[in-house]
């Protein structure tokens, strides 16, 4: 999505009405549910890790724009990942997964017979690229000197998921965490009192307290940039469009097409993560295309909003309270006897 588009779409408005359940399950209109009557379409990130080259431009652009402090100089030995994970001082994190795999014998990528690159070039930016047809001639030999297994180096840029049902926001007692008109979740540093309730409430372990001041920090999806029609800094800086920003509905459609394209090219392990409104957090505002199980990337396989059971808990508590009350009444009644 190019700059200026957020303002353009905000004019169109028109989200479906909010559903009743505010704590879990599908919620087609998060901003509406949060009380914005004419909210612009919900926006988010689609991070396509199959084209991530691990350049970390997103990490640097994020820090530059948001003035996030440096996070310590430590050579971790975890491949080229010296960032280690998301935290108060790291709002984008590129994971590097270096693995030996059994040889698949499958040809990566695809062929291009019967495909006119110049026609495609003329249409570039106006139509989605057609999916390449599989190559007619056998597989590329995987590199296996000395009987080695195939080497794989996965790269993936992680970020706050901006959940449909955000546990952090639900538990925040001060209102420092709030849902924006774009459907994103943002912390207001000047309101946060450092209670830290939100930290264990995040099912992804994203939000984090800064040791020096006790307050919590995380990705704002560049709320200040969205407000003036600019895309977030990380997406802007991504050279291969691994990080794509836009209206969530559009991103979901694009992601589905990309998965189909990869499957057609034989990359059957491509799958989406966090895109489904049916999942434990009602779908993520920032979702991913992964090439393996989420655990491989250090992502929880089945995240559930920590406040999902809150209504049930309240019901249980209410039942308990009623029972207690009944018990008390009964005991008094008994005494009278």
């Amino acid at each position: 999505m190019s700059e200026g588009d957020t303002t353009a779409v905000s004019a169109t408005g028109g989200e479906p009405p909010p559903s009743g359940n505010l704590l879990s399950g599908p919620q087609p209109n998060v901003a509406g549910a949060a009380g914005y009557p004419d909210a612009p379409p919900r926006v988010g990130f689609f991070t396509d890790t199959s084209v991530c080259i691990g350049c970390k431009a997103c990490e640097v652009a994020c820090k530059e724009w948001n003035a996030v402090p440096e996070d310590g100089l430590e050579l971790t030995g975890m491949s080229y990942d010296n960032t280690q994970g998301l935290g108060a001082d790291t709002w984008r994190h590129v994971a590097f997964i270096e693995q030996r795999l059994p040889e698949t014998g499958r040809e990566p990528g695809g062929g291009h017979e019967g495909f006119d690159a110049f026609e495609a070039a003329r249409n570039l930016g106006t139509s989605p690229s057609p999916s390449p047809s599989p190559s007619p001639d056998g597989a590329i030999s995987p590199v296996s000197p000395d009987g080695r297994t195939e080497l794989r180096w996965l790269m993936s840029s992680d970020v706050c998921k901006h959940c449909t049902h955000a546990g952090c926001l639900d538990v925040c007692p001060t209102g420092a965490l709030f849902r924006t008109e774009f459907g994103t979740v943002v912390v207001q540093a000047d309101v946060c009192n450092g209670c830290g309730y939100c930290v264990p409430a995040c099912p992804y372990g994203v939000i984090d307290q800064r040791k020096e001041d006790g307050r919590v920090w995380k990705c704002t999806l560049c709320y200040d940039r969205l407000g003036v029609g600019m895309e977030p800094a990380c997406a802007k800086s991504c050279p291969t469009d691994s990080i794509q920003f836009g209206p969530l509905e559009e991103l979901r459609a694009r992601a589905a097409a990309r998965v189909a394209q990869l499957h057609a090219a034989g990359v059957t392990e491509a799958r989406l993560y966090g895109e489904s409104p049916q999942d434990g957090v009602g779908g993520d505002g920032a979702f991913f295309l992964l090439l393996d199980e989420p655990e491989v990337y250090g992502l929880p396989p089945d995240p559930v909003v920590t406040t999902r059971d809150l209504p049930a808990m309240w019901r249980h508590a209410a039942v308990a309270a009623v029972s207690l009350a009944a018990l008390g009444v009964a005991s008094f009644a008994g005494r009278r006897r």
Partner: protein
Amino acid sequence: MAECHPVGFQWVMEAKARGAKVIHVDPRFTRTSALADLHVPLRAGSDIAFLGGIINHVLSTGAYFRDYVVAYTNGPVVLREDFRDTEDLDGVFSGLDAGQRTYDNSSWQYEGTEVQAASGERDQEYDKRTGGGSSVSAAGRGEAHGSGGAVIGEGEIERDETMTHPRCVFQVLKRHYARYTPEMVERICGVPQDVFRRVCELITENSGRERTTAFAYAVGWTQHTVGVQYIRAAAVLQSLLGNIGRPGGGILALRGHASIQGSTDIPTLFNLLPGYIPMPHAHKNEDLDAFVQAEAAHKGYWGNMRSYLVSLLKAYWGDAARAENDFCFDYLPRLTGSHSTYETVLAQLEGVCKGYFLMGENPAVGSANARMQRLGMAKLDWLVVRDFSLIESATWWKNGPEIDSGELRTEDIGTEVFFLPAAAHTEKDGSFTNTQRLLQWHHQAVEPPGEARSDLWFTFHLGRIVRQKLAGSADPMDRPVLDLAWDYPTKGTLAEPEAEAVLAEINGHDAEGEPLASYEQLRPDGSTVCGCWIYCGVRADGVNQAARRKPGGEQNWVANEWGWAWPANRRILYNRASADPDGRPWSARKALVWWDEAKGEWTGHDIADFKKDKAPGHRPPKDATGPEALSGTDPFVMQADGKAWLYVPSGLTDGPLPAHYEPQESPFPNLLYEQQRNPVRQVMPSRPDNRYQPSGGEPGSEVFPYVATTYRLTEHHTAGGMSRWLPYLAELQPEFFCEVSPELAAERGLEHTGWATIVSARGVIEARVLVTDRVPPLTVHGRTLHQVGLPYHWGPSGYSTGDAANELVHLSLDPNTHIQETKAFAVDIRPGRRPRGPAARELVRAYQARAGIDDHTGTEP
């Protein structure tokens, strides 16, 4: 490419999304390999064997593009009878003077032409071509052909269109590469034969009339004692496959800095003037006519060199440059030999070179044999460093390794060091020229902080003040400075010179002061002014064409309204070759430019790199010279014969065809020839600081059993001046590390994230250890070879620190370009940290003794 050029790599990803296959050939599995369809690890320093193997495959299977080769290359040209190939002389070409380490290239010439010297020694022909004058020692001029090929002798070239003549280039090529078999490739490079065959198939299937293949190389390819021949091997292959001058083809040099192409076009090199005009040598009584006579080509656009040079002299000296004073040609400095960066260091050590400017360069970390760089600077009278931070080249006198070892004491160093903070590109106007010859203008966004100033500001005001100080001098030596046209408008409180005024001077103007639109308008009589002939047109119509930013979606796919490319805004060089000899596109899907018979002109998607109205059937008259001598089927208009060169009769110092030689230091003997190394590589005088190691089967070579290579990481930039001082970048790669395989770690007891000490005959460094499968052991010459990967960004200063990999590297250079061999050398590696203080040098000396190294070792031809 993803590793060092992530922004450019987006286009590779774009191509991949549209079905292109990406092959990555690299000793290491990098971020590029992760996204490639096929990664081929090979032994560092064995690329010519690999490329030669592909050339052999193409020639022996008939996969070359025959019509293209016959029409547009010198394949049919017949060579002289006395030429002897490496096939005949076991690894060397005819004309070798082993004692002088030079080739006499007379036997390399085409049958029927006069002798023409290699570019490096072109000046040796000065006597013959001008009929007088004395010759001086040679200065390599490999870069002198950045805008076209070398001069060849005059005469009628003998051709055999059937390419069956035993002495024609094509047949010579076939015989030369016949020994580069898949078995040889496997044994030399460590690339299994099935993987190698797959590479051959992918490249040949994707080349020809309907398809094209591009080669992209990071400039690491040039950092070998046979660096130029690496590129030549790719050029031979691409010419055979018809992949030059066509969309999707070419050989793309991924240059190491944002505008390093610009700094060779308008050079910072000692041996070039703007636009690749050679720098004159110190001859007695050489005037402008004699220079042009000696240097200009007979045929092609270099035939107009006088126009380019006179227009340049007019730009330098303005009204002072007049016909009667040879347009101040005498004011140009003269070369007395090679004055390349490494020879300058030797001159510093000898006390000859006394002053040094370092502008955006950190040789104390980034140049080969970093120790010699520092020792040289310690002998200077003065040193000026202009950079963003206090880089090692500005602080070696207080915290360099020689201070630690006690070899230098700060109080004994006489060098006066001036540090002047530099402005970043966002703090000044200017242009970047990228590898595609594309100029893109950038506008100043903010004022530079504090005392930081742009290079333009510094250079202009330095010149202004020097001229003030010399004003009134009667010394003729000062005339060239005092007569300079040095009056640029300035702006703002900082008196920043107007960058666009410089661009206007580069573009040039006519006698009326009107901006020129094309170098074809340049005149030899002093009526035109032009600072760089190949950039002529960048400000056509008085408009800064480099500042154009029309989005790709709003123009055709060639996008020639984005920025401006030299020459004449052509986006693909030599694109006449995209059409067949009759002027029709080779195929519809690869159409780029073509001849429009009705209009009588070349037309198409790109701007034709050809005279617009020269018909395909045009044959020049016998006495034609310069561009007029090119026929309608000579697409390579900067070449002296209009053809792509499969074979180089002149222009190179080290042979007309690429041949595999082992690096200066290699654990292996050369399996292809008796000749171990490039016989004419430039070996520096063997000093105690620059000892070479034994190679191949020589005793002592086992002391340094591993091949090492240096490289860059995405997170840092070259010697670190732009990245190690920045917390946001430093935290991403916080420390110097080496990369080794699990097998090597086991063999030498190296622990993951522990310390390793790496030793060569020049120096010793320590690095943290990353044990990774990404640097796999290879089977070379039937045994296991381990390689050691060394990113070269670090030094002792800055926010992120570490030892400099360049402490290990020797000074044995490519003879054409004087570029060091940082990409393949031999080392030993051991666990633990390196010794401190004087013990560090002791360790190096102990290794030298163990390997039996003396001043003769490794210096044999």
